[in-house]
């Protein structure tokens, strides 16, 4: 009997053991209750970006020794999945990184973000940020977001390969096709791409649709107000995208590679160009970087406005943060001219602050700014401009088209069914 009771106790203790960490976690909770702690979660998980992010937190800490910033960096994809949980938590992180535009508005619309009108006024960001950035940060005219950096999409190419074959960056569609044909004839695949992550194909759809049908139509399509089986969309697929794929201007089996696995085809000389965002530099081997140039995607119809993808990242604060004043103070620092200049110098992204000293920027950054400023309309990116599920269906459709270029009509008809359901 006595032995029995001992056994029961032992069993219970063993079973309860896994709960022990939670008991101790209570202690940590108390620290977080303190007024001088802010929790900052970020998705800057690439090696270079991580270093810069940590350095910025350190700079803020040095200036505010009474504040403790509890900083966690979460891998980009995981972060995206966890964000709803962060925002809805009773004790959420106080500051979160995120993307401007529709993806941010989704949460603002659900009352999950803190109204930052006073912060924008106090920091005189209303003047220091251009109207475009304010609009990207607002939902129904109210700012809920602080944009701090952006980058551009362009055609990246190897200068040495272009030189070898006597090529110049093309400016028109005809010149562009000629460049592709010359490369092909000389045994170089014009474009590398890895569509396993799918969004790289979205970059092609964005730019072709904006060039052929104009950015206004494109944004309207993103908002769910145009049909995917509209003849104008079919025109993009059939008459512009399809010949590029059918002519073999892309590497084979693109769906087998991630975007960064597609880079070696370029450095080995098998392929010459890559339509990509400027973060290509984060993964491009340093010894080849001097040879990497970029140019604006060629103009197809000179009569329509020029659009460009230039995604913007920044910060937001959950509506039920327990420390709104301190959270705003931290975001004020991250959005300051100083922090942005540091980020622009160390990471190569462009700052959103209009007073950034351009003399500190590299030649390529200046070229990037000019590219974005010369555009009539700045889009975010397919996945950021449209509904979350639409994005997923769209990406699948683009990759399916890639494999079955003769099926554009069927693929677009199905995409249209999805659009009607998703935006109903």
């Amino acid at each position, binding site marked *: 009997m006595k032995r029995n009771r001992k056994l029961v106790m032992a069993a219970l203790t063993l079973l309860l053991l896994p709960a022990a960490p939670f008991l101790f976690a209570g202690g940590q909770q108390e620290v977080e209750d303190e007024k001088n702690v802010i929790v900052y979660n970020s998705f800057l998980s690439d090696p270079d970006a991580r270093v810069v992010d940590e350095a910025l937190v350190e700079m803020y800490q040095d200036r505010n020794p009474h504040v403790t910033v509890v900083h966690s960096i979460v891998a980009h994809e995981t972060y995206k999945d966890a964000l709803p949980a962060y925002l809805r938590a009773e004790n959420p992180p106080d500051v979160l990184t995120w993307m401007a535009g529709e993806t941010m508005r989704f949460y603002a619309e659900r009352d999950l973000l803190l109204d930052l009108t006073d912060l924008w006024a106090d920091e005189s960001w209303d003047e220091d940020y251009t109207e475009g950035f304010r609009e990207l940060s607002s939902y129904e005219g109210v700012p809920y977001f602080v944009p701090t950096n952006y980058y551009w999409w362009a055609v990246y190419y190897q200068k040495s390969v272009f030189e070898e074959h006597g090529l110049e960056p093309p400016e028109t569609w005809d010149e562009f096709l000629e460049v592709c044909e010359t490369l092909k004839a000389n045994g170089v695949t014009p474009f590398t791409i890895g569509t396993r992550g799918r969004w790289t194909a979205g970059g092609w759809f964005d730019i072709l649709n904006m060039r052929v049908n104009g950015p206004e139509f494109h944004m309207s399509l993103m908002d769910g107000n145009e049909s995917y089986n509209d003849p104008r969309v079919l025109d993009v697929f059939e008459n512009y995208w399809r010949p590029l794929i059918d002519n073999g201007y892309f590497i084979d089996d693109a769906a087998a590679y991630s975007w960064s696995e597609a880079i070696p085809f370029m450095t080995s000389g098998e392929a010459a160009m890559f339509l990509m965002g400027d973060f290509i530099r984060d993964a491009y081997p340093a010894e080849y970087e001097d040879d990497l140039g970029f140019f604006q995607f060629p103009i197809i119809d000179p009569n329509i406005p020029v659009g460009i993808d230039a995604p913007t990242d920044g910060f937001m604060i959950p509506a039920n943060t327990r420390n709104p004043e301190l959270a705003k103070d931290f975001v004020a620092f991250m959005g300051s001219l100083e922090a942005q200049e540091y980020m622009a110098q160390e990471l190569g992204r462009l700052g959103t602050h209009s007073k950034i000293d351009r003399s500190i920027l590299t030649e390529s950054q200046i070229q990037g700014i000019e590219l974005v400023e010369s555009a009539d309309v700045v889009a975010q990116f397919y996945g950021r401009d449209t509904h*979350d599920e639409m994005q997923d269906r769209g990406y699948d459709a683009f990759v399916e088209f890639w494999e079955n270029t003769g099926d554009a009509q069927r693929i677009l008809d199905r995409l249209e069914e999805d659009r009607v359901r998703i935006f109903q």
Partner: protein
Amino acid sequence: MKSQRLVNRSRRKETRTAFAFLLLPVTVYLIWIIGPMLYTFYLSLTEWDMFTSPTFVGLANFRRLAADPVFHRSLLNNLKWMVVFITVPIAAGLSLAMVLNRKVRGSTFFKASFFMPMVLSLVVAGLVWSWLYNPAHGLINTVLRGIGLPQLARGWLANASTVMESIIAVGVWRQVGYVMVFYLAGLQSVNKDLVDASRVDGAGSWKSFRHVVLPQLAPITTVVIVISIIDSLRVFALVAVMTDGGPHNASNVLANYIYLTGFQWYQMGYAAAIAVVLFLLAFVFIVFYLSRIAREEDHA
């Protein structure tokens, strides 16, 4: 009389102890398994984005399932997986067990080698095979080109026509050793006298295997088939690591589709409806199979 009461008392005590031991696991089971399961059934009848409270929509989610091509493709892939899993690894695992059960030289080495893949985590196995399948530099295509068969080299994971089979092959590669171990254990309990007797009576090795050994392995076969059905219906990691369901859903499976719907598009109601279908599917197959086995045993 008195002794009877003593026995009763000690039995009652035993029962009480048994309940004390059971209390915690049963509570845990109710809270973490039965509760969420019932809640999933309820959620499948709602629309819920995880931010606002769920709204009841009746069978709308199931109607949408009926017309959703991605769901059909995923379901078909799961069934394909199941058909392969209850045939190939079982036949191969049983054959290996029969061969390695004899005292041949190096049988321990071979047993260990065939079981090795099972020890690897699914994520590692998926990554390693992704490299083997790499169209430009992978081992498989390199070998095919090297032995003069370049026409067989292809983008294994990049084409809708080969991607599902390529992933299932990795699943089979892992499963064979696992099934083999089950049968090796089962073979230990096969009555050797019966086998010898059948040989004396003139049965060939195939006949004695078919009519003497195999019936004795029936309980193992039952377990292996049930495990194979469950394993093939809940596949997730290999697909998530190797293709994430791509290209364009050609290798999508229900578990991955549930994950996408629930945690990337925040459509918990719809995700729950898929989960319910997956649950019913597993339930129907296993109940059908087990009841058939039970009936056969009754007849015997």
